[in-house]
């Protein structure tokens, strides 16, 4: 079976010199949950934004295919990019919801890509879309806030609204670009559990970029590491070793890794939390 996501020889140069992505090639199968790690500036965001067709690569042999369709090739977006985008959910670090709209209106935006364009443009959403939006809000625990203005919510709540918007989109692939980087630990855990549930219960492919190694190990099965725009490591979470992390981040992360990995995929949650708190110190 064709992988759900195929990236081949993806290169993106900024300012004619700086290679944000340097011939990255990788495949992701359906129903995978992948962590994308790497230091700041290693190209994680740029990679995810290319997959969603929000930016274009350099000209040349760069190519991205998702769900058997071209997203972009040689620096040109596919002609039906909008329908492809509606099948790829994107969760942003800064949430990117519209502050002056209500929570419900924000979530309904998720149905724009699938609705007939006159409905979305005039705001005449179908009843089934409204139900879908409310049930998504219920799932992320934000139902009671449906009629509140989005800007009045806390960061963690805004991110849950953003996830509800993505749920309404009913995408097959979900990309999350450092979704927990600006959240407090409790909200971060809540968001990661939602992503895990979207992966496990709905069977979606999830790719999440993270700074926290411990979260990557706890929630994901596969870790892809980027360093200076190049694919640095790609493998299962189970057989990853401390050396990989010290090579990516420098030596300091090694101890965190040791503390965390011994509890990975176990149910020693209390111990894990302890390890998390050491990690954040």
């Amino acid at each position: 079976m064709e992988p759900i996501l195929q990236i081949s020889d993806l290169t993106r140069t900024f300012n004619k010199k700086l290679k944000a992505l340097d011939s990255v090639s990788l495949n992701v199968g359906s129903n995978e949950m992948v962590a994308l790690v790497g230091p700041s500036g290693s190209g994680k965001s740029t990679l995810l934004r290319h997959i969603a067709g929000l930016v274009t690569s350099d000209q040349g042999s760069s190519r991205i295919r998702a769900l058997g369709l071209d997203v972009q090739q040689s620096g040109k977006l596919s002609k039906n990019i909008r329908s492809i985008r509606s099948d790829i959910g994107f969760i942003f670090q800064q949430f990117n919801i519209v502050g002056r709209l209500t929570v419900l209106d924000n979530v309904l935006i998720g149905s724009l890509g699938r609705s007939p364009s006159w409905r979305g443009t005039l705001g005449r959403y179908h009843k089934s879309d409204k139900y879908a939006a409310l049930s998504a809000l219920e799932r992320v625990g934000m139902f009671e806030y449906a009629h509140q203005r989005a800007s009045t919510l806390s960061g963690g709540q805004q991110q849950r609204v953003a996830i509800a918007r993505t749920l309404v989109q009913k995408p097959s692939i979900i990309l999350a670009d450092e979704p927990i980087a600006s959240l407090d630990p409790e909200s971060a855990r809540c968001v990661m559990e939602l992503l895990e549930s979207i992966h496990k219960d709905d069977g979606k492919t999830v790719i999440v970029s993270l700074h926290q190694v411990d979260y990557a190990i706890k929630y994901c099965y596969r870790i892809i590491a980027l360093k200076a725009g190049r694919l640095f490591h790609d493998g299962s979470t189970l057989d990853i070793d401390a050396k990989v992390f010290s090579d990516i981040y420098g030596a300091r992360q090694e101890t965190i890794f040791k503390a965390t990995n011994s509890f990975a995929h176990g149910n020693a949650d209390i111990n894990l939390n302890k390890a998390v708190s050491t990690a954040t110190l």
Partner: protein
Amino acid sequence: MEQHFEAALKQNDSRKSLTQTLSWGIVIGVLFWSWNGAEMNPLALFTDADNMLEFAEGFFPPNFHHWELYLKEMVITIQIAVWGTALAVVFSIPLGIMSSENLVPWWVYQPTRRLMDALRAINEMVFAMLFVVAVGLGPFAGVLALFVHTTGVLAKLFSEAVEAIEPGPVEGVRSTGASALQEIIYGVIPQVLPLWISYSLYRFESNVRSATVVGMVGAGGIGVILWENIRGFYFGETCAVMIIIVVTVSLLDMLSQRIRKMVI
């Protein structure tokens, strides 16, 4: 260590004083340059003081004998401003978006902006004179004059608001597979709406003021009466009309300020 700081402060001060001297020099230079052209003659205020006093006395007491006519024409003046502003707002939405460099390519925003510059450069009075010729004497010429000029102003203000938006929410809408028009409706407009409403109210206020003068060239409203009274040396009546204008404009300014506070 302290020497090091002193040197840094000194450098900062000398740079500041140089720019200050230069800018004052430019300001004073421009004022001198404009003196003769503007035929500045402050002495006339004193030598002709008696004349002016006599002239001013003619305004009092104000003559409100025809107050019903004045009020009726004042209402027409407001109605001219309402329609002039409303048409301008409707046209400024697409034109403002077409002038925003963060939404459209340069070959769209450059020509649109130049067209808006032209509409702005020509005063309402000039447009009023032209439209009086085109559609005849009366308030409709005034409406068209305000509409055209205000479109030039509002499209520029609207586009400045659009250029200051956060790109994040727009990208959020884009990532759901929305069309370009939907990106604007759901990502851009909610962000700029309070500013757009505020600018539109400002323009309405200033259009009420402008509507009082377009009448002087025959484009309807209280300006017609004002002009007839001034030409006929009926200064008592002129004063009454001016009082009505001042009161109406002040009331409308207060009202629109209220509304502005509500939307922001």
